C-alpha cells in the first residue's frame, strides 16, 4: 500500500507520516517513508511517501501508484495527483494557504472550486473540515489527528483503528491525550457524516 501525505511547512506532514508508519510497524508490517525537505523556512511544499507491506521498497514511489492521499492543503493535493491511481481515496483538509506571491500576482493560486472539481474528476474525494474540527477539539495543531481519525474510518487502511489511535496517544505530550482523542473521534464522525 502506498500512502502520500502532503501539505505546506508547519502542517505536521512528517509527524503524521511517522505516526502512521509506527502504527503499521506495530501491526507487524514493513515500512519505508520517503521524504526530502529543504530548509528551516516555513510555508513551502512538503510531501512524504509511506510505503507499507510488499510496497515497502524504494523511498520514492512510481507515478500513478498511490492508494491514499492525505492532503492538508488543496493546491498541494493537486500537486500530488500524478502519483495517484485512478479512483484512489483523497482525504482533503479544505484550508487553502495562498501565500503572498499569489496575492501579488507573482504566482497563480487556482480557484478552489476548480481544484475540487479536478480532484473529484479522477479520485474519490472526501473533504474534511479538519482545521476547524481541530480548533473545536482544543487546538489547530491537532488538524493531523482529525485527518487520521477520518482515515481510520475510511476502511482503506490495513491498520486497526485502535492501533492507530493508541500510537497517536503514545506519541503526543501526555497532557494532550484527552484532546487528541477527541480530535480523532471528530475526524471519524466527520467521515461518517460525509459517507451518509
Amino acid at each position: 500500500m502506498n500512502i502520500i501525505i502532503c501539505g505546506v511547512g508547519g502542517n505536521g506532514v512528517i509527524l503524521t507520516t511517522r505516526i502512521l508508519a509506527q502504527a503499521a510497524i506495530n501491526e507487524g508490517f514493513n515500512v519505508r517513508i520517503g521524504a526530502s525537505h529543504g530548509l528551516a523556512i516555513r510555508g513551502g511544499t512538503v510531501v512524504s511517501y509511506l510505503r507499507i507491506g510488499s510496497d515497502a521498497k524504494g523511498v520514492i514511489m512510481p507515478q500513478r501508484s498511490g492508494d491514499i492521499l492525505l492532503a492538508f492543503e488543496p493546491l498541494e493535493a493537486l500537486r500530488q495527483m500524478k502519483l495517484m491511481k485512478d479512483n484512489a481515496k483523497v482525504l482533503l483538509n479544505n484550508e487553502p494557504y495562498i501565500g503572498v506571491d499569489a496575492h501579488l500576482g507573482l504566482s497563480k493560486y487556482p480557484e478552489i472550486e476548480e481544484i475540487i472539481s479536478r480532484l473529484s474528476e479522477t479520485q474519490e474525494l472526501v473533504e474534511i473540515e479538519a482545521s476547524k474540527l481541530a480548533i473545536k477539539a482544543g487546538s489547530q495543531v491537532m488538524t493531523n489527528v482529525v485527518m487520521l481519525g477520518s482515515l481510520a474510518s475510511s476502511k482503506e487502511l490495513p491498520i486497526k483503528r485502535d492501533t492507530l489511535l493508541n500510537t497517536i496517544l503514545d506519541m503526543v505530550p501526555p497532557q494532550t491525550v484527552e484532546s487528541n482523542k477527541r480530535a480523532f473521534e471528530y475526524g471519524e464522525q466527520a467521515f461518517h457524516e460525509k459517507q451518509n
Partner: protein
Amino acid sequence: MKVNKNLLRDAGERVLLTGNEAIARGIIEAGAGITTAFPGTPSTQILDNLGPLAHQLGFHAEHSVNEAVAFEVAAGAALAGVRSVMVTKMLGVNLISDPLLVIAITGVNAGLVVVTADDPGQHSSQNAEDTRYFGMLGKIPVLEPMDGQEAKDMTKYAFELSEELQLPVFVRITSRICHSYFDVTFGEITPPKREGHFEKDPKRYVMISTLSRARQPILTEKINRAAVINESNPWNKVILIDKGEITTKTNPFKTEFGIIASGLTYPYVEEVLEKTKISAKVLKLATTYPLPKQLLNDYFKGLEKVLIVEECEPVTEMQIRAFAQREGIEVIIHGKEDQTMPRIGELNPDLVGGGIEKLFKVKFSEELTKPYLEVEAMLTKRVPALCAGCPHRASYYSIKEALRKNKKGGVILGDRGCYNQGVHEPIAGIDTCICMGASIAMASGMYQSGVKEPILAVIGDGTFLHSGIPSLLNAVQHRSKITVIIFDNSITGMTGHQPNACTGRNLMGDPTPEVDLADIVNGLGIENVKVVESFHTELLQDTITRHLEDDGPKVIISRGECAILAGRERRITKEKVTRARVAVETCTGCKVCMKKLGCPAFGWSSSGENEHLVILPNCNGCALCVQVCPKLAISIPMEKQIPLKTKQVVAGR
C-alpha cells in the same frame, strides 16, 4: 537541548529512524570519541542528534566554525589514536579537500570517517556536485549504503576499514537517505575511547615536499589494498532476477543483461524489474571506489550489455568503462554518458524505468492521462519566503529604502543563509549569491574593478564566522570602499538553528563566551562599525545612508532575534504574541505592505465593501508592517510591541 532517546535503545531492537539518525547510531555503535561537523542540509541532524548525547556517553561533539576546521579537529584526534568522524554536506568537501588530501598521505592511527551527503535534484544546495570524485582525487575509499540499516552498519564498518588501511574513509549518502525513514535493527554500543596519545614521527606527519614525496608509494599501496578488501565487502551483492522475480537458482537462469546499482537506487531497480518482468543479473555495489576487480571479472562473465544506475555523476560508470577496456571485456555499457539515464536531477523508479524502456520493449511507468496532464499544467511552485517576523526582512527593507532615497543605485552582493531567500520578489534584495563567504570578497573585486555604484555585501553571523573574516581583512588591507551589513541573529538559522560562536553555548549544551561580532570587526582594523537593531528601521536606514560614501570598508551589524527561536522561547515562558490588527475601514487596499515586505502572515480579503489586508495566525508581532503602512491602518499597541533595546547606534569601540 532535546535528547533523542530512540538512539539509545537496546541492541536487537527495531527502530524507525531517518537515515541521519541511523548514521548517528552507527557512530555511537562504533564508539567514536570525536564527532564534528559544520551544519549543512541534508546531513545536519547527524551531529544535532549526537550533541545532546555527548556528555552522557563520553564523546566530544561539535559544530565547528567551518568544515575545514571540523575536519582538522577530527584529523588531529585520529592522529592521536582516537576514532573520529566529520560530517558534512557535499559543499563542505570542497573546503576539507586541502587537509584531506594530505591526511591521506600521512595516514591515521584510528578510524577517521567522513560522512558526506550529496544533494541530487538540489533540494537545498547551490550545485549538484558528486563528492565521489574527491575519493578518486585523494585515494580515499568510498562506501555507499542503500538504506538506513546499511547507513548505520556501513558507518560502523567504515571505522574498521579506516583502521585496517590507516586511511580516511568516505561514507557517501544522498539527501533522500538523510531524510527518509527506515526500520533499523540496532547493534551493540561500544563505549567511546578518548585516551589520545600522539607518537611523534616527523617523517610521517611533517608533510613538507621531500617527506611527502617519500610517502606517496604508501598511499598507492593502500588504495590498491582497499580494492582487494572490497572484494569481500558483505554489502556488495549479486542478485539474480528471473523474469522479475529474485531467484537463487543459477541453473537454468541465464541472461545477457546486467544492472549495476549503487546507493538507494538499488530498490528502484528491483521494483522496475519486478513490474516489467525482465531478467537481469544485478550487482548492488556498495564500494564505488576503488572497484573490486575480481568480483567484477566474475560478474561480467556472460553479460553483453550492462546498465549503470547511480545518483549524480557517472562516477561508477567511468570507472567500469575503464575497467572493461583494461580487462578486454566486450560489453556495451549504458548509463549517463550515453543518456540512457539522466545526468541531471534526482533518480526515481520512473526514471530508472525510463532507462529500461530504452533498452527493452517494455513499459514501466503508468501513463499520465489527459486529466492528470491538465492538472500538471495548473501547478505553480510556491515561492519560499523569510518567516513572518524575521529580522532579515527589516534589514532588507532598510537597505532598499536607503538606496532608493540615495538615488545612486547600488549593487548588493548576497551570501548564504536564510537571507538568500531575499532574492525573491517582493524583497528582491540581492544581486549575487555564490558560496559561503563570497559576498565580501566579491564586493571588493567589484570595487577594485571600478564599479561606480555603492557596493554592499550582506552576510549572516554564521557565514561571517565561517568564511567572511578573511575576506573582510582582505578588504581592509586593500582599502575597498564597500559597506558590509552583517545580519546578526546569533545563530546558524537556515540549517535548523545550530549554535555558533556568537550564540553563547555549544552543541553539547555547555555555556561558551558570546563572541561579539563588533569586537571581531574592530580587531580586523575597522573602526567604522555600527550596531543597530534590525527592527529600528529608521535608524538602520539613516546609518546606511550616512556611511555609504565613507572610504574603505565599513561594517553595520543589524541585530535581531530569529523569529522561530523567539517563538520557541515564548512557548516555554507562555508569553502571548500580540498580532498586528488591520483597521479595515482605513486600509485602502494599496498593497504597499505586500509590495515592500511580503510577510507570509499577510492574507487578503477581496470580498465585501473594500479590499483589505488580513493578518493570519502565523503573525509574530514584529510590527514591521505597522512601520511601513502609509495609511497607518495596521497597529499593535505600543506596550505590546517587542521593545527595541537600542535607541541609538552603538558605535564600535
